[in-house]
C-alpha cells in the first residue's frame, strides 16, 4: 500500500486531494478505524467553525471601518475621481450600518448594491472589458464564475451593454454586467455563486439608500439587478432579465 502522510490526511479532510490520492487515503482509512474517527472530528471542527463565524459576513460593516479609507483617500487623492466613487459607496454603506427597523437586507442585495455604488458612477473605467468585446467578456466571466453566463439583451428597454468586470465576493468570483440608457442611466447585473443548496427563485426587492435592487436565486447562483431608478421601472427590466435567462 502507498505511504499515506499526515499532510495527505489533512488534505483529505479539507477536500483538496486529487481523485486518485483521495481513493488511496480511503483505502488506507478502511484499515485504520481510529484514524477515520480522528479525521471525522477534524471535519466536524471545520463545519462548526464555519457555522460559528460565517454569520459575521452578514453583519453590516460599521461605518468606523471606513474612516481610514475615507481619511487617507481624501488626503492623498482629493482630486482623483476615485474619491467621489468611494464617497458614494461610503455614504451608502454608512447608512446601512445604522440600525434599521426593517429586517436586515440579505447579503446578496447588499453586495450587489455596494458594487453598483462603487462602479456605476465611474466615468473612465466603469468596466474591465467593454461591450465591443462582448463574446470575450461573457466567456471570460463564465470561466471565472464557473457557470455558463448569459448577458441579457436589454435593447428593447432602451439599455445597451457597457461591458462587465470580475469582482470578488464571499463565495469567490462574481460577474458584474453594466448597462446604460441614452441618458447615461446605469444598471448593473451581479451574478454570484450562492452558498448551500438554497433554491429560491422568487423575486425580492431591496432599497439600499439610492440604489434599488431586485434579486433572486436560481439554482446555485444569485442574481441582483441594481439601479438608481424607480422600483416599477427596475422591475420591468428585472423581469426581462429573468425571462431571458430562463427562456
Amino acid at each position: 500500500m502507498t505511504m499515506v502522510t499526515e499532510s495527505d490526511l489533512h488534505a483529505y479532510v479539507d477536500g483538496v486531494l486529487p481523485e486518485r490520492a483521495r481513493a488511496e487515503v480511503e483505502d488506507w482509512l478502511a484499515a485504520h478505524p481510529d484514524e477515520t474517527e480522528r479525521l471525522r472530528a477534524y471535519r466536524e471542527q471545520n463545519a462548526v467553525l464555519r457555522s460559528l463565524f460565517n454569520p459575521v459576513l452578514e453583519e453590516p460593516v460599521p461605518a468606523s471601518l471606513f474612516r481610514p479609507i475615507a481619511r487617507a483617500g481624501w488626503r492623498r487623492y482629493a482630486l482623483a475621481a476615485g474619491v467621489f466613487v468611494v464617497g458614494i459607496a461610503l455614504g451608502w454603506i454608512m447608512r446601512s450600518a445604522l440600525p434599521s427597523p426593517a429586517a436586515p437586507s440579505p447579503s446578496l442585495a447588499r453586495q450587489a448594491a455596494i458594487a453598483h455604488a462603487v462602479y456605476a458612477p465611474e466615468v473612465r473605467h466603469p468596466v474591465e472589458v467593454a461591450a465591443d468585446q462582448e463574446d470575450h467578456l461573457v466567456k471570460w466571466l463564465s470561466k471565472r464564475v464557473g457557470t455558463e453566463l448569459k448577458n441579457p439583451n436589454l435593447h428593447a428597454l432602451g439599455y445597451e451593454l457597457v461591458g462587465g468586470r470580475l469582482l470578488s465576493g464571499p463565495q469567490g468570483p462574481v460577474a458584474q454586467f453594466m448597462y446604460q440608457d441614452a441618458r447615461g442611466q446605469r444598471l448593473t447585473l451581479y451574478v454570484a455563486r450562492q452558498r448551500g443548496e438554497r433554491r429560491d427563485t422568487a423575486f425580492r426587492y431591496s432599497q439600499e439608500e439610492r440604489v434599488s435592487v431586485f434579486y433572486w436565486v436560481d439554482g446555485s447562483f444569485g442574481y441582483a439587478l441594481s439601479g438608481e431608478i424607480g422600483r416599477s421601472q427596475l422591475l420591468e427590466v428585472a423581469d426581462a432579465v429573468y425571462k431571458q435567462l430562463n427562456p
Partner: protein
Amino acid sequence: MDRQHIVEHIPRLRRYARALLGDRYAADDLVQDTLERAWNKFYLWRPGSDLRAWLFAIMHNVFVNQVRRHRNEIEQTMEELPVVAVRATQIEQLELRDVDRALGALPSEQREVLLLIAVEQMTYGEASRALDVPIGTVMSRLSRGRERMRQVLGGQAAVPLKAVK
C-alpha cells in the same frame, strides 16, 4: 483593479479577525488598522496578484505586532478563561460555545492556520503566503491545532484550556 476593491474584502477580514480575537471590538480595531495600512501601502500591492492574500498577510502582521506588544495582557486574559467541561459522550453535538473557547485557547500560530484553512478556506499555499511561513510549517501547525482542539473537545483528558504553550 484598484484600491476600491479592498472594500469588498472587509466582511471576510472581519470574520477572520472575530474568530482570531473572539472579541467584536478588538476584532474591528484589528480590521481598521489593517485597512489603514493596506490603503496607505496600496502601491506595494503587485497588480495581478491575489488581493485577498495580500490583505490577510497585512492583517497577520498587524496581529503579530499587537500580540507582541500586548503579550502580557493576553496571557492574563487566557488564565482567566474557564476550563471547558468535557463531555466525551456528547462529541456528536459539539457546542459552539465550547468550540469557540477551545479555539481561543490554541496558541495563536495554530489558531491562525486553522482559521485560514477551515473558515477562510484558503489553500495551504495561500495560507503559507499570508502567514509568510513554509508550507511544511502550515501543515504542522494545522495538524497540532486540530489535534489539540480534538483533545480538548473530545475529552481524551480534561485538558484545561489555559494550558497554552
